[in-house]
């Protein structure tokens, strides 16, 4: 049985679609990230699941039950907001207890439950503190515990880490993942940060302009993007616009490159080459089965373990990542020859 299911859901504001014909299913206990650029409809999708919005078309199901006409209060969803949204007049303990109090839970059940949640998020010692006395990261942990207190059918998080600084963001990211795994709660996690999404999700759904472009495991999305938008969004820096000729052949400018043989129709598309899969061919080596692109080094950036080169190939800038253990990195303005093997050039739809 699925935890959350969206069946051809659309939502319009005025004439424009914020969410367009989205179908998505999240398994019970699964951690799914909804990722995409700002304004692509992630929050709207989340609000449709929560019940703050009703779909214009389509249907939302929680644990297999249709949510048509079911209000937010009855849906039993836990929500974590970007700006924490803790009740400022209640202590940490009472914030976490809030959902149980609305259900008139007796004190002898409520107290141990809240204490257990607080120790799960590592704040058992701050139970009597006021929200404003806590750091942003701590407040968000309280918000997480508060959302989990009602044993929600699904946990919805809308950019929960965006307001925090980088260091806290990283540690809290893995804590959210740990807590989700321990509690086994179906989770939809919204973020615009592809790295965040890829690092904690079981599955990622990538949205663009109200539509889902691709759904898959982080590995799938990263290695086999369905189109150039996905490839670009998950951080492939090299996308060459050209034409797929079928049979593992790709025309870029005057060249015919041998690339991965993918089931794509012949015609205009993009060739994706990851910077770390490109190497520098020695001057005299034969090309073998690889592709050779001659170019000139136009920039160098030191990135710790990596050295990133910008190479000008016929006016197109191609990025190349070299491990910094390379003995002799090329100098600026040096003429070099780039090499990539056919398996590392992947044609993707769209340009």
């Amino acid at each position, binding site marked *: 049985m699925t935890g959350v299911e969206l069946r051809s859901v659309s939502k319009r504001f005025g004439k424009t679609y914020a969410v367009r014909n989205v179908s998505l299913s999240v398994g019970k206990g699964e951690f799914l990230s909804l990722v995409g650029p700002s304004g692509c409809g992630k929050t709207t999708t989340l609000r449709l699941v929560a019940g703050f919005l009703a779909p214009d078309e389509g249907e939302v199901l929680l644990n297999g039950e249709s949510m048509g006409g079911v209000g937010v209060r009855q849906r039993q969803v836990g*929500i974590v907001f970007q700006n924490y949204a803790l009740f400022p007049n209640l202590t940490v303990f009472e914030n976490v207890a809030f959902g149980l109090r609305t*259900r008139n839970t007796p004190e002898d059940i409520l107290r141990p439950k809240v204490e257990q949640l607080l120790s799960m998020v590592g704040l058992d010692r701050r139970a009597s503190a006021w929200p404003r006395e806590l750091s942003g990261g701590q407040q968000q942990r309280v*918000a997480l515990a508060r959302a989990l207190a009602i044993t929600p059918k699904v946990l919805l998080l809308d950019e929960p880490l965006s307001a925090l600084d980088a260091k806290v963001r990283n540690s809290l990211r893995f804590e959210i993942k740990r807590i989700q795994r321990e509690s086994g709660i179906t989770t939809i996690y919204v973020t615009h940060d592809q790295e965040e999404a890829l690092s904690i999700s079981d599955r990622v759904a990538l949205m663009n302009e109200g539509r889902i472009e691709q759904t898959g495991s982080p590995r799938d999305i990263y290695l086999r993007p369905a189109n150039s938008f996905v490839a670009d969004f998950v951080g492939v820096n090299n996308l060459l616009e050209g034409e797929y000729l079928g049979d593992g052949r790709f025309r870029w400018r005057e060249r015919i490159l041998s690339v991965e043989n993918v089931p794509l129709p012949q015609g205009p598309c993009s060739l994706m080459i990851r910077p770390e899969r490109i190497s520098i061919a020695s001057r005299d080596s034969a090309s073998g089965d690889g592709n050779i692109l001659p170019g000139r080094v136009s920039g160098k950036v030191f990135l710790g373990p990596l050295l990133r080169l910008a190479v000008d190939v016929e006016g197109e800038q191609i990025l190349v990542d070299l491990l910094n253990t390379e003995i002799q990195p090329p100098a600026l303005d040096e003429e070099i020859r780039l090499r990539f093997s056919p398996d590392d050039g992947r044609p993707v739809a769209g340009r």
Partner: protein
Amino acid sequence: MMRRALWLSGGICWFAYVLAPLALILVGSFGEKWFGTLLPDGFTLRWYADLFSKTMYVRAMGMSLLVACLTVFINALVGICSVYAVSVLGKKWLRRAFEFVILLPIAIPPVVMGLGLVQGFNWPSFSLVGTWQLLLGAHLVYTLPFMLRPLMANMDMLNWTVLEEAGTSLGATPFFLATRVLVPNLVPGLLSGAIMTFAMSLGEFQLAVMVTGSASQTYPVVLYQAFYVSTGFACAATTLLVLFSILSLGAVIFLGRLFGTRSAGMAV
């Protein structure tokens, strides 16, 4: 240097125009007679005894307290509801209307308002003029802006839409949310609004003198008449009003502390 001079002159003005007259009135209320000298002669509690023996003054004080308390209470309810509506509905025109409502009674002098009320509610078959209910209505309108302003500022700081969504998703009914979250978080605004409106209603003279009748006179109206009795008596009557104001404000602040100003994180 400049700042010190400003502070100093401000302090002198405050002393000369606020504290000194109050102190003189306090002293005068215990004096036997006070004529042509800086300070009165003799010590007596006679004026206070007089004051409490005259039912007119005692009843007027009761009337003033009644009207002031009702004004605060009703304005608080109206204030919470309107501030909630303006903030949650988020309509631009509603906020404009709100600003207008806040400004209008301040722009209209109480005398004008009093005249209007006397004209408007005085019909041969049906007259509200002379009743305390009419005065209550007048005070409500007159003081409402001073309740709305701090409440709205408080509400704007709350980020209420998100709090409401969070609470609703946790299963709270609108009533539960209003009593457990909204009102407690509005306590600071309510408190300053209550202090303002209470003080304004308690000491309000112009509307009261025009609208009330002999049975519904409030304290400031009878106090004005006290100056025709004797200086000492008038001083005692004034002291009583100041005492009541200060005590009531103290009570309001105490109640506010009790109901979670601490938690709302704002001192009053």
